[in-house]
Structures are given as structure tokens and as C-alpha cells.
């Protein structure tokens, strides 16, 4: 994120003030992203292109602004997950968990929430909801119960679970990559809180939906007939991919001691898994298999990140984020605790309304600029956790708060169960506020009491 040297030697187009120009490009890009009128990747790449074409930064500075650790981490995990999912292991776990509660609809909703939270912590939450929500929809159809408790609880659980680890949610990946905070630091600082919030949320889910989630014995029997073992399509692939996934997570934990960044670990794991799945194939089959795995990578998302990094690089280079950082410190009187709470609430409310990825990408250099004033890197750590908590949990505030929300709502709509903005907001926003209050107390008790 801060791979750019601050320099005033760059020639800005028409001699415009770089600060103003970069701010206009940032606001314009984010404004257009907010309207959702144009594809977000196109908008980010255009914004990034404007930053370079207008002379705010050079091409080499723009490339340096792209955080390759984030890009590599995302790419590697996407490849690993795309191969692992073809084994059917995720469907197996979802169906197995539904049967553990004797197909009781309320029990299934709780179990699937827990499964989604767990998967979201170790995969990305988009992938998780894409794997679990179709099974949830199939189950509610068989049980003839309302799908909305399942859809809404899946969204909430995926964002809470994703908060727990470095790889759980894109904001955490961005923060981890920019700051060098490790996988272990993420899980020890955010994991307990994510678990606590989930424990608080589950009884609320029960209170909210217990009356709606009742099914006849006959319908429950149709779920109990599910044969989870049949969902495993390739046992060998399942074993191999789970081993690689476990090794990658282990690599995230131990890599910090050997200066191996998560991006390297994830890409190496992806390459290992590709080698394993293509080992016994001939050359043409190998090419086909590798091609299939690579087409599963969300290239538009990666290009979106690249464009975003360049836009943020432009404002960072022009000094806007230093100014904003100083303003925030002025408001909070430079008190670390107040700054942490302000960051938590600001990021939660902003992430409810807009995509949390561009927000966090912008906030990172701004928080970095406060390091000196707050007393060094250690004093900054609670601010990073506050930013991560606000951005991840804030995603629960509205239907557009996180990409996973939009995906679940899209799946629901395709299956004939559209979720309206207001319908989600009435449940999501109060629960998001509750989770932020809990997070605020946690930040106070853990770092400032």
C-alpha cells in the first residue's frame, strides 16, 4: 500500500494541484462505484488509469502501489478453494451438520450459521456462501419453511466468521498485507471476539425466527434421507486438497518466523495442489485441468483491487491521507483509545453504506500516517484491529455492505426468494450496531483498560 515514494517532481497535467486532482479522482471513482451503474472493475481501472495519465504518479509508482502480496494471497486461495470445492467436501459438511440436529429447521439454521462462520474464517466469505447457501435453499424447500431466516443468518454469520482471521475477509487481507500483522496475531486478537459475537447472535436468531421454523416429521424425514457421503465426488482429491489447505494455514502461522508472506504461501500451496491433481495426467489433460482451475480465479476482483491500489496511491502520494489522518487525530485529541473507537464506528457505519474494500484501502495509509503522533507501531495496533472489526462487522449493516451479502441476495432471488433492502436492514443494522458495541467494549477491555 505504501510502496510509493513521496515526491513532488511528477509533472501533473495542466499544472493542476495534485492534492485536488487526486481527491477529485478518488471521490469521482468512489461515487461511481456507489451508484453501481458501471462494473466496479472497469471503474477502478479507469480511475487508476487517470491517476497515471494525469501525471499524479508514474507508471512504475503505480505498479509499486499495487500490493502484490494481497493479489497473490487472493489468487492462491481462489485456486485452492476452486479445486477443493470440486471434491464435494463442503456440501458434505453442510448436509452432515443438518442431520446432526435431526433435521429440525431451527437447529439446521444454527448449524449452518456455525458452519458458514467457520468456513468464512478459513476461506473467503464469498466462496463460503456460494457453497453453503444453495444447500440451505435446497433444505428449506424440502422442509417447506421460510428461506429468509436462513438467507439472513448466512449473511450475518459469514461476515462475523470472516472477521476472525487474516484470510477471512478482504479488509483483513488488505490490513494484514499493508501492516505485516501475522495470521496468528489476527486470530488471537479478532478470533475470540468473533466467537463471542457469534455466541451472542445465535440466541437472537432463535428468538427472531423460532416460530417460522417448524416442519412436519414427514418433511424432516426427507432431509434425514440425504446421503452426505454421496456428495463426495472424489475422495482422493478431497484428502489432497484438505491437506494442502491445512498446510497453507500452517504456513501462514509459521511463515512469519521466516519472513515468508502469506501471498507466497498461498501461491505455493496452489501450485502444489495443481501439481497433485495433474500428476497422473497426460500433457493435454494437464493443460485442461490447469486452465479450468485458473478460470475459476476471480480475475475481475483482482483487477478491481489493482485499480483501487493505484487510485489510493494517487491520494497517498499527493498527501491527502496525511491531512485526513491529522484531522482525525485533531478530533480525537490524539488520544489512542478515542482514535480506536472513532475508527471502529466510522469504519462500521461507512462499511454498511459502501463497499468496505475501497474504504479500507483508503483508510490504511491514513492510519499509517498517524503512527508517529500516536506513539509508534505498537500503539497503532488497536487502531488496526478497530479498522478490521468495523469494516468486517459493518458489512452486516445493509444488503450492500459486503460482497457476500449481494451474492446471497442474488442466490435467493434466483431461487424465487428475493430479499429486500429494508427487510435485511431491519434485522442487519441493529445486529450490526450490537456487534460494534460488543467490539467497542472488547477493544476497551483488551487494549485500554
Amino acid at each position, binding site marked *: 500500500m505504501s510502496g510509493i515514494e513521496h515526491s513532488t517532481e511528477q509533472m501533473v497535467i495542466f499544472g493542476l494541484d495534485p492534492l485536488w486532482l487526486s481527491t477529485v479522482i478518488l471521490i469521482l471513482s468512489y461515487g461511481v462505484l456507489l451508484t453501481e451503474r458501471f462494473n466496479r472493475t472497469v471503474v477502478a481501472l479507469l480511475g487508476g488509469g487517470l491517476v497515471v495519465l494525469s501525471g499524479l504518479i508514474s507508471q512504475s509508482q503505480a505498479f509499486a502501489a499495487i500490493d502484490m502480496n494481497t493479489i497473490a494471497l487472493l489468487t492462491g486461495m481462489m485456486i485452492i478453494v476452486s479445486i477443493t470445492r470440486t471434491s464435494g467436501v463442503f456440501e458434505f459438511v453442510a448436509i452432515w451438520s443438518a442431520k446432526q440436529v435431526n433435521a429440525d429447521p431451527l437447529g439446521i439454521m444454527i448449524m449452518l450459521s456455525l458452519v458458514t462462520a467457520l468456513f468464512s474464517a478459513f476461506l473467503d466469505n464469498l466462496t463460503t456462501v456460494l457453497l453453503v447457501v444453495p444447500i440451505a*435453499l435446497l433444505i428449506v424447500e424440502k422442509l417447506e419453511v421460510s428461506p429468509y431466516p436462513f438467507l439472513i443468518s448466512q449473511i450475518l454469520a459469514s461476515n462475523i466468521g470472516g472477521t476472525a482471521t487474516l484470510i477471512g475477509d478482504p479488509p483483513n487481507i488488505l490490513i494484514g498485507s499493508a501492516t505485516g500483522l501475522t495470521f496468528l496475531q489476527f486470530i488471537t486478537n479478532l478470533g475470540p471476539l468473533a466467537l463471542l459475537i457469534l455466541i451472542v447472535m445465535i440466541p437472537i436468531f432463535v428468538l427472531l425466527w423460532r416460530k417460522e421454523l417448524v416442519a412436519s416429521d414427514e418433511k424432516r424425514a426427507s432431509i434425514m434421507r440425504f446421503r452426505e457421503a454421496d456428495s463426495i465426488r472424489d475422495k482422493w482429491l478431497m484428502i489432497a486438497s484438505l491437506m494442502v489447505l491445512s498446510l497453507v494455514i500452517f504456513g501462514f502461522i509459521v511463515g512469519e518466523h521466516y519472513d515468508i508472506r502469506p501471498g507466497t504461501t498461498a501461491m505455493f500451496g496452489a501450485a502444489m495442489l495443481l501439481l497433485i491433481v495433474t500428476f497422473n495426467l497426460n500433457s493435454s489433460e494437464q493443460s485442461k485441468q490447469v486452465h479450468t482451475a485458473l478460470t475459476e480465479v476471480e480475475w475481475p476482483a483482482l483487477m478491481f483491487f489493482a485499480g483501487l491500489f493505484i487510485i489510493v496511491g494517487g491520494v497517498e502520494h499527493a498527501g491527502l491521507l496525511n491531512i485526513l489522518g491529522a484531522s482525525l487525530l485533531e478530533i480525537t485529541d490524539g488520544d489512542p483509545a478515542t482514535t480506536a473507537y472513532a475508527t471502529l464506528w466510522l469504519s462500521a457505519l461507512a462499511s454498511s453504506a459502501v463497499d468496505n474494500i475501497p474504504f479500507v484501502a483508503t483508510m490504511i495509509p491514513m492510519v499509517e500516517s498517524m503512527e508517529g503522533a500516536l506513539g509508534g507501531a505498537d500503539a497503532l495496533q488497536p487502531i488496526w484491529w478497530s479498522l478490521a472489526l468495523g469494516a468486517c462487522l459493518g458489512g452486516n449493516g445493509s444488503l450492500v455492505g459486503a460482497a457476500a451479502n449481494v451474492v446471497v441476495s442474488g442466490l435467493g432471488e434466483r431461487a424465487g426468494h428475493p430479499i429486500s433492502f429494508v427487510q435485511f436492514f431491519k434485522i442487519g443494522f441493529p445486529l450490526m450496531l450490537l456487534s460494534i458495541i460488543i467490539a467497542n467494549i472488547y477493544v476497551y477491555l483488551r487494549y485500554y483498560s
Partner: protein
Amino acid sequence: MDCKSVMAPIKKALYADELAGVAIDFMVEKHMGLVPVTNRDGTFAGLISGSCLMAMMLPRTLSAISGSFHNTSFLNENASEMEERFSVLRERTVGEMLDSQVQVAHPETPLIDALMMIKDQQNVVPVVDEQNVLLGAISFFSVLYGLNKEVDREQVERMKAAERRERETEKEQH
């Protein structure tokens, strides 16, 4: 060569407001997997296909987001579950399940254009007039009949009918 020279006339129309059960019986009787459907005024409404009907026979979630499921054998469904969905399906109207987004040809459309449509996986090309009234249809078979004059459509129809009768007789004897 144009479409009117090879198109097969519509002998019995299927209407969009009829029950799907009627369409299913018709398709089974005629051994047709893809049938043009009209509105009561004769205008073309769309095509009903075996795959449309099969999609309706699946649990709704599976047909709506089929791409999310690589394997569905874990459902372990029994016959009564499928029969239940089939009987519900028969009571729905043809219009609910037909595909209206299909390419059509006109009598004067060059046959090569219809062949391109068939090549693009649309196995039956409806032929309509300027008022969108259905006049006939072109399929792989009608093209072959049109090009190979030695094969007479009526004769093939008679052979198919005889074959059906033979099958029914065999069934009764069993």
C-alpha cells in the same frame, strides 16, 4: 432455397393457456421433444421442450441455481417425491414453462439462416408470417425431407404411426 420449401406444417396446435399435462401427453404421443406453442389467435408464443419440463420436475432450487450443484445424488429422493412434483407440474399451464426467447424464421428466410439456428442448438425453428402467426416449423428432419425428395414426409409419418401401434399392441399383450 427458402424456409417455406422445407417447413413442416403445424397439424395440431398447442396453446399457451392449456395445461402442461396436455402438452406432455402430446409430446409423448408424437415422440417430440420440442414443440411450438401458439396463443389462441394463432400467433407464436414460444417453444416447449423436454428440457423445460424436466427442469420443472426438479426441486425448484436445483433448477434455479443448477450451477451450484455438481452432484445431486445425495438427495436420495424416492419415487413419491418425484411423482408429487410431476402431478403439480401437469396442473400448471404451458405458458408458464415455455421458452419465448427463441429465434424464428419467415417463409422467405433463406434456408441457410434456419440451418445456422439449428446448428446453434435450437433444434426447431418456428416459421411465422409478418403478424407472427405460426405457419410451420423447420427441424433437422424437415430439412432432410426437403433436400432428399426420395424420402416422403407422409410416408415417414405413416411408418412412425405403425411403429407406435405395434408398440401399444405389445404393451397390451404384456
